[in-house]
């Protein structure tokens, strides 16, 4: 009775006081370090005559993960800096044509003066706006138009830094051209802006340029070695050498402090790139990485500790209805159910209401993404479930694109026969309805034999026989090229997870990206994630990890590791991540076997939750999305820019932070004080942290109690 009442109150407060509660919960954030407080569309920046440039190879050029970072951040950056911000990158026609609206900068704007000045030097420059949220200003440089100066640029680089670049490395040569063009532009812009400011009696212009990754880093090197007085920030999203070392199955983290970095880079033929990266790292005024773990990597491989950690955020879309994401989960789950019915036809002896969907997804890097320990732990989970909860089934999806020879016949056939059965039954159903109606119209209630004719029964029986199968449901949906050497299939064979009737863990390896045109699923990746119960990402090497972050904002709990940037971030900012549906496997301080056991036990813990507990957990997970929003995380980018500005212009005072009377700029832990019970509460249910806020605390308590976390 008591419990019911409480739960009623929970629902109630969820609906009515949600907005209010959110405010209270994040009140600290809102007053302290939320980027939203600086959203003035560049008003203050323009009064301060402060200009920001952000440079990356991926600006309006969809070639890698950093594209997502830059693109999703564009909105908050323009909200903050408006026309005082400009993104720069290479002009790649096929991308720019769809992503960029070409516009000239307005007359009298120093941005335009500098563009014209560079054009007169023979460079082709495209200016305009990026067609993404926020619509930021864009300058794209045509690399071909600067190619004739490559030798001169390389000589300058050689002369000033003693770094040479091989003729054959086209990518590096392109990066050199772009870098020097950008440096020339910024140099020129600084001159134009100074002249303009003098003419109009403005303050001295203050310019900060933020460079991402080594390709753009060339521009930073050029700028600094030409002694241009511009504040610089350099961000690595993962070190070059780290990527190479991890691709080679080295015991990376245990040897991180022991690598002879020059030699390792030299052996892998990336010495020149590594030198560019490391030089940019050391030349920048402020150096940042995307996570603690990458910071640790940079400290040892690039020999500089990051000044600030700038985690990657997401552009979180808020639904107007509060529990919309729960409804979306239910709808998407139904679509996955549909797939499972087809895939496991003839073996549908398990209850879909007691089935959990786990998934892992990403680039197909077997070891780095932790697919190895995932499969191993699934085998153990299988054993545990058989013993403890034989009515629960876990279907594990592995979404890793690799080379295939299209779908395999068996998985397509399953969907066909299930559809046939459904169509037949629909027909029979209509027939019954018609007969029932006609008969009732005559005032006669039909008996069962009259409703279901013999003909119908025969049809149904035929369909059911078609559903029988001798084979077991396939572990993969596609014919994989060279399947004998495929690491995932190898691991599945070794663990004997063959989808037998007795197995409580079923495997589905889907070696292709999910699209809505996919004949098996017919849903895209986002919808698929929404429909799953748990994302499992036990990565070994994962500088940031967008996949678990995406799960979180959709309200889907996930398992990650303390070697992934995301895991580190969550561990640092939430005192008890587990209670928020973020399970963090330790892959750093304990042995491999222990990590596997821990992962298996986390999955088992999750499988023990009942439906209601899972709903509450999803609610709690979804609440973290504010933490991952660029509106919150953008503050770190702001901090790094301010720090760089202060390094170059010692008299620079961050006025906007004075305005709001904020003294703690190094606000690094928006969640340092736990909104969830701190560890002491594991033993004693203590009064709420929010003291006066009774309702909220009851609510939190209830939730946690219901989750079985006390």
């Amino acid at each position, binding site marked *: 009775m008591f419990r019911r009442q409480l739960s009623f109150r929970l629902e109630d407060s969820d609906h009515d006081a949600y907005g209010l509660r959110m405010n209270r919960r994040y009140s600290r954030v809102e007053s302290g370090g939320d980027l939203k407080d600086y959203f003035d569309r560049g008003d203050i920046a323009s009064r301060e005559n402060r200009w920001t440039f952000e440079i990356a190879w991926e600006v309006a050029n969809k070639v890698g993960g950093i594209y997502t970072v830059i693109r999703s951040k564009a909105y908050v950056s323009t909200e903050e800096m408006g026309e005082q911000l400009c993104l720069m990158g290479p002009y790649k026609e096929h991308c720019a044509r769809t992503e960029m609206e070409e516009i000239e900068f307005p007359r009298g704007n120093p941005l335009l003066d500098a563009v014209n000045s560079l054009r007169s030097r023979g460079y082709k420059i495209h200016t305009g706006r990026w067609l993404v949220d926020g619509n930021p200003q864009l300058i794209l440089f045509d690399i071909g138009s600067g190619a004739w100066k490559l030798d001169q640029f390389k000589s300058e680089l*050689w002369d000033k830094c003693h770094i040479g670049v091989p003729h054959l490395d086209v990518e590096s040569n392109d990066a050199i051209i772009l870098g020097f063009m950008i440096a020339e532009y910024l140099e020129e812009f600084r001159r134009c802006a100074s002249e303009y400011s003098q003419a109009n009696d403005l303050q001295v212009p203050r310019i900060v340029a933020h460079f991402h990754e080594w390709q753009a880093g060339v521009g930073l090197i050029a700028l600094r070695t030409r002694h241009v007085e511009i504040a610089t920030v350099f961000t690595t999203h993962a070190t070059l050498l780290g990527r190479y070392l991890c691709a080679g199955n080295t015991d990376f983290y245990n040897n991180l402090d022991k690598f002879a970095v020059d030699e390792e880079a*030299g052996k892998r033929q990336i010495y020149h790139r590594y030198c560019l990266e490391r030089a940019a790292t050391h030349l920048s005024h402020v150096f940042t990485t995307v996570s603690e773990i990458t910071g640790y990597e940079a400290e040892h491989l690039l020999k500089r500790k990051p000044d600030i950690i700038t985690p990657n955020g997401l552009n979180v879309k808020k639904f107007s209805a509060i529990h919309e994401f729960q409804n979306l989960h239910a709808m998407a789950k139904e679509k996955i159910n549909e797939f499972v019915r087809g895939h496991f036809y003839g073996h549908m002896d398990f209850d879909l209401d007691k089935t959990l969907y786990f998934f892992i997804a990403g680039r197909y890097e077997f070891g780095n993404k932790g697919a190895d320990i995932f499969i191993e732990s699934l085998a153990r989970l299988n054993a545990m479930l058989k013993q403890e909860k034989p009515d629960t089934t876990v279907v594990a999806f592995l979404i890793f694109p690799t080379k295939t020879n299209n779908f395999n016949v068996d998985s397509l056939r399953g969907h066909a026969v299930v559809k046939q059965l459904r169509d037949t039954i629909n027909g029979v159903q209509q027939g019954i309805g018609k007969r029932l109606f006609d008969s009732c119209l005559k005032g006669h209630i039909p008996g069962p034999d009259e409703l279901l004719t013999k003909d119908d029964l025969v049809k149904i029986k035929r369909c059911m026989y078609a559903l029988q199968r001798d084979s077991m449901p396939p572990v993969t949906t596609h014919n994989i090229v060279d399947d004998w050497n495929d690491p995932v299939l190898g691991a599945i064979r070794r663990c004997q997870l063959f989808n037998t009737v007795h197995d409580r863990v079923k495997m589905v390896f889907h070696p292709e990206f999910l699209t809505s045109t996919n004949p098996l699923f017919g849903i895209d990746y986002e919808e698929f994630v929404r429909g799953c119960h748990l994302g499992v990402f036990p990565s070994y090497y994962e500088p940031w990890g967008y996949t678990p972050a995406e799960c979180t904002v959709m309200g889907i709990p996930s398992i990650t590791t303390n070697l992934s940037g995301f895991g580190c971030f969550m561990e640092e900012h939430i005192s008890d991540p587990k209670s928020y549906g973020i399970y963090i496997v330790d892959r750093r301080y304990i042995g491999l076997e222990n990590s596997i056991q821990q992962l298996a036990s986390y999955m088992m813990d999750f499988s023990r939750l009942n439906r209601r507990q899972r709903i509450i957990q999803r609610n709690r997970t979804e609440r973290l999305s504010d933490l991952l929003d660029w509106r919150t995380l953008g503050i770190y980018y702001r901090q790094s820019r301010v720090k760089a500005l202060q390094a170059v212009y010692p008299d620079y005072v961050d006025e906007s932070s004075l305005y709001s009377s904020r003294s703690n700029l190094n606000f690094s832990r928006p969640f340092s004080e736990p909104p969830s019970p701190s560890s002491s509460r594991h033993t004693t249910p203590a009064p709420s942290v929010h003291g006066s806020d009774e309702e909220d605390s009851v609510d939190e308590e209830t939730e946690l109690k219901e989750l079985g976390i006390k």
Partner: protein
Amino acid sequence: MSKFAWVTLTTNDTYSLGALVLAHSLRRAGTVHQLAVLVTPGVSESMREKLKDVYNVVQEVNIMDSQDAANLALLSRPELGITFTKLHCWRLVQFEKCVFLDSDTLVLQNCDELFEREEFSAAPDVSWPDCFNSGVFVFQPSQTTYDKIVEFALKNGSFDGGDQGLLNQYFADWATSDIKKRLPFLYNVTAYASYCYLPAFKQFRDKIKILHFAGKMKPWLMHYNSQSKVASVPSDYSHANDLIQMWWNIFFDHVHAQLNTNMAGLAGALSQLRLGEPRTPEQEAYEHLMRRQCWESGQVDYMGRDSFDNIWKRITQTLENKPADDDKTGGSSAATSTIHNVNNAHGFSTPAHMH
């Protein structure tokens, strides 16, 4: 005058250094035959002058200029153009028989007996002995043969994209037909250690007739100390240390004095070196250029002078050297101007046909 000739090919001033040393090594070995060199437009005028001093014939080859049908056909396949520069040797019909030598070869002993061989004689390639190496071969100039090979090439291409693949396809029966056409390996010994049977190299080194610096590392790219006149040889060439030193000795006895600053590439830089004197800015500029050249061909001494510590030292120097007090004097700016000079000529690109 002899109707026989040694023929080589050079595509830029840097490779011409090799051609000059090769010519002197042939003269040293006392050949009685003529010397001919094919040059492409990439070779500067002043370098051609110097080549004329040692070669009886300096013949420009330029597919763009010629009018015959085979060449016109070639124009449609520009990627094959560079491959075919070497084939132009068949058009030297003023000679009865020729021996082709790559410009990165060095003749150690008189080899005039090669002219007793027939077309097409060559030595096996170390990494696939059923193919010949096209760095040294005996042939008989003939416009007909030339046309046939070009026609063959247009039809079949080259399996390795270079002239060696093409010639091996065209003279496909070389390995099996006539043992006399198979030159002893001593006429084309590859100097690179990983291709080399070291005990055999030691055993037969005095019998080597022609040494071939196949691969990326050329003697002119190796570091040479102008003060002590000693070349510092990379470890994978250490077995051939004295032979590389011999290359440099010939270079400085006969070639170096002939170079001038009008030449492009390494030749121009080397011309400024003074021998046996204390280090000068020119020497440093040259070493500078050599180091950059090594980087650009992917050979970085990352464990030694190119370590990141040294790079950072240089960067720190640059940072300290503010532009305000940089008044364009002193050694560093001299070095800069030399480098700019060199770059314009694209002196360092490695032509595909060099084996």
